[in-house]
């Protein structure tokens, strides 16, 4: 049984890139274009890991993590936020909201897979 990862990013190319990388490594991927979509999906579906960008319209990644943590099924699902180099404060905010950790953008695929391997 392969793990399912929920990838959230408002940029289609980034989503597809992440999806491509993860799928080739054997994971199943569910894509969401923003926090609202992701949350709606999460309400009725479980995943093994959540990967979310921070800067998104409507609901940013940190709010998404906070909201997801409210869901019973997502209390103990690892969640990673994607921040940029300079986003130190985002890392802390993410943590406070309940994120497991972060990945710094731009990241290379190997790093992505390695990091995910660490938490799954």
């Amino acid at each position: 049984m392969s793990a399912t990862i929920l990838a959230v990013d408002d940029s289609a190319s980034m989503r597809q890139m992440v999806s491509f990388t993860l799928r080739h490594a054997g994971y199943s991927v569910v894509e969401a274009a923003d926090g609202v979509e992701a949350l709606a999906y999460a309400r009725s579906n479980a995943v093994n890991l959540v990967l979310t960008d921070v800067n998104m319209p409507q609901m940013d990644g940190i709010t998404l993590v906070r909201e997801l943590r409210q869901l019973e099924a997502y209390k103990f699902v690892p969640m990673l936020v994607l921040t940029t180099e300079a986003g130190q404060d985002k890392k802390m905010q993410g943590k406070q909201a309940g994120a497991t950790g972060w990945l710094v953008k731009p990241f290379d695929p190997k790093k992505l897979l390695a990091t995910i391997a660490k938490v799954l």
Partner: protein
Amino acid sequence: MAIDPEMAEIVKVFFEESNEGLEVMESRLLNLDANADRETINTIFRAAHSIKGGAGTFGFMEISQFTHAVETLLDEMRNGTRAVTSDAVQVLLQAVDVMREMMGLAQADRPILCASADALTARLAEILSNEGAAPEAPGAAAPASRPAATPAALTPAALTPAALTPAALTPAALTPAADAPKAGESHWRISFKPHVSLFKTCNDPVRLFDQLQALGKLEVTAHIERLPPLGAFDPTECYLDWMLDLRGAAQKEQLTEVFDWVDANSSIQYELVAPAGGAPAGGAASIAAAAAPEPSTCAEPSTQTRPHAARERTSVPASVREAPAPAGAPARAASAQAAHKLGAESGSIRVATEKVDALINLVGELVITQSMLGRFSDEFDLQDLESLRRGLSQLARNTRELQESVLKIRMLPISFSFNRFPRLVHELSRKLGKKVELQLNGESTELDKIVLEKIGDPLVHLVRNSLDHGLETPEARLAAGKSETGTLELNASHEGGSIIIEVKDDGAGLNKTRILAKARERGLIAQDATLTDEQIYNLIFLPGFSTAEAVSDVSGRGVGMDVVRRNITDLGGHVQISSTPGQGSTIRIRLPLTLAILEGQMLRVGKETYVISLVSIIETVQPKREHIYSVAGQTELFKHRHEYLPIIRLHRMFDIEPDSLDVEKGLLVVAESDGRHVAILVDELLAQQQVVIKSLDTNFRQVPGLAGATIHGDGTVALILDVPSLIVKFLECAEHGVGLAA
């Protein structure tokens, strides 16, 4: 090395997205002023941020690095540490141009070397380091650090199958390589006291220990002092502390890396008990105890840290750059307009799903009609005749609807072309010191993709012309009793089978006297010729014409207008200009909605049928002897409304036997091309209908006088006349005194 097709598609999406993002940035920036609301700035920021992130991920480092400064500037604006000044906005607009240019280079798979980028980077750095920062903002002095450049080896380009094998992704391989490990072992003692809420972020100490195990021999001692009594025990909280002894060639950075995610709310201390090469501080290393290191809690097998075995490996490429977009990328000098692609020139079209759905439905209906008609081929008796008729008319309707629907797929709204104008007008009016308000009407009017692409440049030229020569300076306008701000309108609408585009300004209008004088001076018209106002205004479309005293670099010398007209007529369209002195000018362009289909007039000469585009026909007349003149025994002229039109005897040009050689017995089709009027002699006019244009060039070659061919309902081929080349051929023949086909 072949690019993984899926990867290439993803990069294409990135380019599309980024180009859209740049459009968003530009249009929002144009409206940005000191009172801008935070959400607008945020939107611009996010667009830049996405582009930067994507560029970095896909390996376009130059774009990523350039955009970083832009993003920083926008970030400061959005969090209030920097005021929104019009200078800053100008710089940002220029940055958008540069980004577009760089995207264009990237898309064309060329090196992203851009001189304007370097200049602008310097300017941005200047601004960021001291200008404009709100006084309270401290530390604005330090320019934002450069983003970490992803080393080439780690870009998606390096994503090879080997990189994804389980072996490559073992814990040992995953932990970052330290600098060349020092000889010998070091002994680190780490005291790890996490906050109770550690588990709430799904950080599992066991996994941390696994990672440490990859760095050396690990001995774990747990302290349970904080465990509360069973009644108060919450399994979701962490009450344990650990003492970790790690013996190996580990560096401090590797250790802190392991604890990176948890150190914010944990208390962690690192003690180098015995540096590498040194004897352990306290007695012999208890190798026995450390021999089989086991975490104190029941660990999941370490295979958990390996990702699930990859299945199908696609052979992923060395380079993620996609093959260059065909046809579109121009070799013109980088200018914002040049890089302002529709994205459509890449050879693909974005189609609204409704259009595709409509198409699918129509095909469905067609299939039904066809099967209904198919019944009749099996058995037919006269009673079925009525059903057959109905079936056939339904078939005709289905086919017509299907055809319209398919053509609609190639149609795009003219907003794609109009979109460049707010920026253009903004820049140009600034440069010329004029105040202009741009009004766009009918932006949703749709037209064929190719027509859309080709009308762009002519429109730009016409707009530039209006701004440069048509609209007056604010002072001149006031002096003339007009408002300071001039108006420039771009209007698009449908009319019959055409699209009408107007470029209208309320400027000074055209100067008849000057135009006439120039035309006479250049020998373009006879000294004593009398022309209507309209004819005078349309003189400006003649090659080599320009009344501007000083050649302004904005609209260039008089090479523009004739090229504009030629571009329009090449598309099968018309252009006309009208003007009222002191009040303004209007340029009216008529274009066919689609290039594949022609609204045609069928006509007959002898036994042959031809088609002529309805758009080229002014009118058809039955000539009277008294209106026909002969010149030098060769050329025949037809007097039509104050004009003398040459008569083109199609039968002579194409070597056909006509019904009669007598002009009076035939019909004269008055046609227009490039401002010239001619009268084409034919025997009879037949029906008007839409015809599908087929090229003669595919299997045969271009033929002078013909634009292509079409297929009649009966399967025979009819040739489509091309008025411009017909006139050219006619003049050639006339010159050589030859009236016959070669």
